[in-house]
């Protein structure tokens, strides 16, 4: 975590701040969701508590906090209580591995009569060499929260919802994993920072072994992997059990799915998990296909840091990182808005349609995407002249 006390504490704080940021985004998103749905459906939405209904969030939190606590008599107490906690962890762990901005460089300085630094702090909770695999692995654990909730409630709706949810999650995990192969083929790296770095600058690729540059377009993965991006985004919808894939909680048949028996803050934690998944999904989409925190063609990281040339290098680095972080967050929020938008636009699938879409449509398309990508990359990058 670091070599001395300063680095360790900064890293620890950073981790917690990022986690809390994620948690704090949830009520905001709920508000966006409610206002957004009202906007789409030509209603008003919450607007009584505070300006634009923003204080509604606080009111909700208080309401959640004061709900009565109980476990169904037939439920398994331990599992019933662990499930919501487990729901939080995968999303938090996955989100922590994604770089939210350029790293901050802190020059050596003197403080409390000691020499500190220099340090480099990555703008993420932790840097993991096998980033993509780690994120996949962490989010594949999310199925347990659902299963435990369903089993712990010992209610037929819960159990059925949990099984549905986990079957759906794992089915779409295939399409998800397979569309990531296209990304890997393109960038040949598991590391997010490396992937982002490769997307900086103008569009540039190898054409039959020669380098070709298109100066007016950014070098974003989306231009190379449009199909993969669409597939991945769709799979994320299903992974986070969002509409149009929210079959596990189809009211007509399953009441509220795996969290039928949950109420109060425990229920809220499932929501945090779900929104956490959405955030991870948006962050991954941004990182893989939309250049992460880079903002070319208008600005590069260097030009941003040149704005702050009157500050010390440490401050400049910090400010640059913040600006880039805002850029990143703007992109992420765009995707989160799409999540909301889609939810209130598309109708829900039937379960067989959902499974058919996952296995018989998306998986073959993702396979095709992989094959075509591999062939194109092979043709483009091979040095055919033989020198």
């Amino acid at each position: 975590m670091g070599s001395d006390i300063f680095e360790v504490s900064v890293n620890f704080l950073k981790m917690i701040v990022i986690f809390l940021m994620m948690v704090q985004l949830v009520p905001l998103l709920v508000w966006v969701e409610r206002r957004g749905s009202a906007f789409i459906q030509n209603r008003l939405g919450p607007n009584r508590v505070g300006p634009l209904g923003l204080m509604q969030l606080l009111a909700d939190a208080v309401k959640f906090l004061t709900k009565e606590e109980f476990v169904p008599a037939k439920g398994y107490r331990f599992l019933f209580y662990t499930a919501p906690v487990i729901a939080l962890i995968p999303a938090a762990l996955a989100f922590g591995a994604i770089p939210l901005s350029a790293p901050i460089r802190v020059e050596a300085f003197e403080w409390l009569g000691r020499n500190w630094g220099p340090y480099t702090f990555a703008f993420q909770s932790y840097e993991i060499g096998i980033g993509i695999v780690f994120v996949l692995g962490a989010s594949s654990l999310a199925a347990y929260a659902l299963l435990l909730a369903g089993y712990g409630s010992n209610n037929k709706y819960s159990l059925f919802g949990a099984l549905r949810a986990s079957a759906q999650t794992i089915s779409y995990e295939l399409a998800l994993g397979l569309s990531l192969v296209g990304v890997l083929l393109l960038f040949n790296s598991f590391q997010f920072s490396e992937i982002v770095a490769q997307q900086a600058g103008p569009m540039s690729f190898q054409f039959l072994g020669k380098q070709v540059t298109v100066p007016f377009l950014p070098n974003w993965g989306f231009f190379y992997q449009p199909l993969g991006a669409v597939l991945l985004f769709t799979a994320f919808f299903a992974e986070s059990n969002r509409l149009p894939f929210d079959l596990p909680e189809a009211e007509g048949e399953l009441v509220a799915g795996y969290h039928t028996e949950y109420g109060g803050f425990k229920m809220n934690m499932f929501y945090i998990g779900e929104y956490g998944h959405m955030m991870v999904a948006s962050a991954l989409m941004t990182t893989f296909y939309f250049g992460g925190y880079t903002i070319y063609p208008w600005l590069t990281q260097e030009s941003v840091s040149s704005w702050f040339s009157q500050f010390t290098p440490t401050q400049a680095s910090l400010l640059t990182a913040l600006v880039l972080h805002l850029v990143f967050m703007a992109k992420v929020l765009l995707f989160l808005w799409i999540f909301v938008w889609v939810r209130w636009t598309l109708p829900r699938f039937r379960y067989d349609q959902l499974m058919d879409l996952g296995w018989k449509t998306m998986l073959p398309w993702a396979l095709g995407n992989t094959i075509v990508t591999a062939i194109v990359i092979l043709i483009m990058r091979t040095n055919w002249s033989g020198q």
Partner: protein
Amino acid sequence: MSQLLPVVVLAIFVATFGLLLMFLASLFGAKGKKSATKLSSYECGVEVAASPTTKIPIKFYLTAILFILFDIEIIFMYPWALAYGDFIEAGLGIYISGAMAVFLAIFIFGLFWEIKSRALEWE
């Protein structure tokens, strides 16, 4: 371990955070009377008729098995995708593509067999 430690710390922190929230909720939560009806499983207001696991299609289980198998095949493609560029640079692009083509042929055959054999049908 230095890469792993923060992950462990974060996981522990998140778990503590969640437990703390639940503890707070139970502290501030309303203390209502617990009656047998309140604590019974939710069944849209009627008496619980049967055990939850009586009528669950085993279909889910087949989906899970197929998922595992395809998941591993996909995982096998990750190192390939990772090293693809290196292989091409080393002039072995055709070779690595051929090796994967055989694997993919098996994969595709399996997938279409499953589709054709209606193992993935949900009625």
